[in-house]
């Protein structure tokens, strides 16, 4: 399924509370979200539990999805990421009363002032300019949250090379944006 089809499914869920559309979205995306959590070091059991929570939010808060602000892929990613952050913090016992802070952390993105097309253009530009190996490193570092050391082990290259390459990629991205 491509980005546009996903957006359309989500609009059906939002407008018509369409359970079939929700079921299609679930079949496509839930295994990928579970994969994301496992890549981020969660157990299969926790990964499944969080995936369920993500989809509960997608269903319950479908009103707050706006396709002109963000693609469904981005919206779903931020929900999944926030759940991960919550989960990891709770487990670390960061706060006595953690509710107070968590709620405010990730809602400040003023998507309203950006046009989805502009963002798409930017991403397209980045994807064109970044080599596949560079794009892969971005994914490993930021999506899978692997440490530089772990990346070095997996790609079988020296740690110093990983650090300098990632730095180089970030500078390149910064220049393009």
């Amino acid at each position: 399924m491509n980005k546009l089809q996903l957006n359309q499914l989500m609009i059906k869920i939002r407008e018509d509370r369409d359970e079939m559309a929700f079921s299609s979205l679930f079949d496509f995306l839930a295994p990928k979200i579970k994969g994301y959590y496992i890549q981020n070091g969660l157990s299969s059991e926790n990964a499944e539990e969080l995936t369920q929570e993500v989809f509960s939010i997608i269903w319950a808060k479908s009103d707050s999805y706006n396709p002109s602000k963000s693609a469904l892929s981005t919206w779903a990613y931020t929900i999944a990421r926030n759940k991960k952050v919550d989960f990891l913090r709770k487990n670390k016992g960061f706060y006595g009363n953690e509710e107070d802070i968590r709620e405010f952390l990730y809602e400040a993105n003023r998507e309203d002032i950006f046009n989805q097309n502009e963002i798409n253009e930017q991403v397209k530009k980045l994807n064109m300019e970044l080599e596949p190996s560079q794009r892969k490193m971005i994914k490993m570092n930021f999506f899978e949250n692997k440490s530089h050391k772990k990346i070095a082990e997996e790609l079988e290259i020296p740690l110093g090379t990983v650090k300098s390459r990632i730095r180089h990629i970030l500078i390149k991205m910064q220049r393009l944006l």
Partner: protein
Amino acid sequence: MNGTLVKNQLIFDFAAGSLGPAKSVFTSTYLYLNSKASSLNNTFESMLGDDLISNHDVALDKTTYKDCISKIKKTKIKSDEESSPISKLVGPITDLKWKQKYKGFSEFNLKIKDDDELKLIKMDPGVSVPLHSHGGKEYILVLDGSFCDEYGKYSVGDIQINDQKIKHTPIACKDDGCVCLSITEKDVIFYGRYGSFLNLFTFIKSFFK
């Protein structure tokens, strides 16, 4: 130090969800105030969203879409009122109980459980901070007013990042002073007339942490 790169690193780590609580609050306030930073964050989140939909599958063991529907009562949707993450956290900044450090310079510690210390700083118009450098990194985000130092002028939504190599003397803008959000990774080292006294104070304070 490449300042822009450090700032962007903060945004990338925010998008990845790998920042600690203090830096998360700091960065979400930064994104709220600075549209350029927010735009970069949106672009990066969009890239990570693409990673998600092209990710490899791990089959679910037992959960079905029905579990996600039945579980939910209609949850209340948070109001989208436009106020900064920091005011949502501590209330209006004008009502805070500031702790005066010396004349014209006050602090409010947000007491977030983290290795990084998150504070609000208020400087009256024209007040300066004694020359100091930093044991670790210091991040300063201007929330209101502006300040200057040897490196330039910083206004609302601007961020300054200092490390141990930088010694500076910030001065609040003459007209309206300055309120900043700051993160310190480690204690600051003071120089100059009262430097040794302030360092001693920091040293003693470290026993009570």
